[in-house]
């Protein structure tokens, strides 16, 4: 094995700048959890398949597990710890969880998704991708398909998002 490669990077996380020397191999997810103590973002699959690690990266939702920290020098990151959004109350009111492990990712993803909707982005659920989208339960399910809930709390997750949208 060659020796680890170390690089200095600066990230803004939840409004605060952090300058760190990192191994080129570390993911944003591991950096957030292990180096910055921000354990809200969860490691589910570590392959971009479950969405539990979803964060907002330069304002857009992304899987932190597949993002190499070194490639995100100067980026702006918001995790569940830095969010203040009506969706958080809506998830509580609608009982949109059971074990809660996927919840931080669900909420970060839903915040990103609502931003995409505001920009008029279409989804595969659309009859016609050229037309401006209108959110309904089918659209929410399609747009949130990158977030898996193994407890199956989907009906209440959809209801919570519909409530806020």
């Amino acid at each position, binding site marked *: *094995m060659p020796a680890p490669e170390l690089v200095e990077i600066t990230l803004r996380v939840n409004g605060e700048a952090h300058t760190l020397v990192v191994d*080129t191999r570390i993911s944003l997810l591991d950096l957030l959890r292990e180096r910055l103590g921000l354990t809200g973002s969860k490691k589910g699959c570590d392959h971009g398949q479950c969405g539990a690690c979803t964060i907002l990266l330069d304002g857009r939702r*992304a*899987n932190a597990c597949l993002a190499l920290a070194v490639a995100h020098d100067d980026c702006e990151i918001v995790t569940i710890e830095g969010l203040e959004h009506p969706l958080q109350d809506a998830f509580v009111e609608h009982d949109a969880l059971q074990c809660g492990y996927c919840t931080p990712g669900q909420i970060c993803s839903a915040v990103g998704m609502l931003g995409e909707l505001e920009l008029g982005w279409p989804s595969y659920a659309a009859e016609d*991708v050229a037309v401006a989208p209108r959110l309904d339960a089918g659209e929410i399910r399609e747009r949130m*398909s990158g977030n898996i809930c193994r407890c199956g709390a989907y009906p209440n997750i959809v209801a919570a998002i519909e409530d806020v949208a």
Partner: protein
Amino acid sequence: MRPFRYERAEDAGAALAAAAAEGATFLGGGTNLVDLMRLGVETPAVLVDVTRLPFREIEETEAGGLRIGAGVRNSDLAADPRVRSRWPALGEALLSGASGQLRNRATTGGNLLQRTRCPYFQDVTAPCNKRAPGSGCSARAGEHANHAILGWSERCVATHPSDMAVALTAFDALVHLVGRDGGRECPVEGLHRLPGDEPQRDTVLERGELIVAVELPPLAAAERSAYRKVRERASFEFALVSVAAGLELEDGCVRQVRIALGGVAHKPWRAHAAEAALHGVPATAASFRAAADAELEQARPLRDNAWKIELARNAIVRTLVELTR
């Protein structure tokens, strides 16, 4: 994961110079590459990050088409109003792929160069000619229900996973490349290879060659087009079979048609035989079925995937019938 050196390129020249290093690989959105590195399938010594190169715009060409920078994210391309109105099947193909999170990271160039999701390719303990040339194909006699029915070889029966590439193949798109000896263009249809004796080579790219843009020419048939993806769950899943099709009609007959299939071969499969069978004929379900038959005549199912032929036939017919409405 094997340690690697990281280099961020600010322009194409720097990227090409960095890529000349032994074991260098370009990094786009990383949604496939980082995963493969974690699995031990890819072990680059140097990652050359090309996401900050100035190839992040979508521009109109003089010919009336679009030039899409290789660094344009899949979600931005899918949201582009020109794509949505003039190449809707491309928008649909992009939106049918992966998840919202992944589309926000994945780039146009990287999407084209993603690797097969054949489980044996991703499992470093299994023989696989694509990952370890000469080691054998575990899928040939193993689990291959979702593998190729067209153009496969005894060495490899894997399929190409991209949805976007299927639509680009249907619509005569070109890939703009730069290498150390200058630039060249290549049709998307000719970018990916059939496996033959060298399944380790997914594409015709030379070592160190970089995709800088994808160009869509203007195409009448693309304006009335759709992407149908058949899969085992409704979202966030790869295709069993997919169809990108575009149709231009005149007096109830086919004036121009474009058809490409996904999930059936080592590359996006342009259905030239089906297109030829449709030129000038009445746009009816019977014509579409005959055209699908003409294409699928050359299909060779594996032990466990003959069902894909019927699925592809039905997907072609239904996509075209819906385009006539």
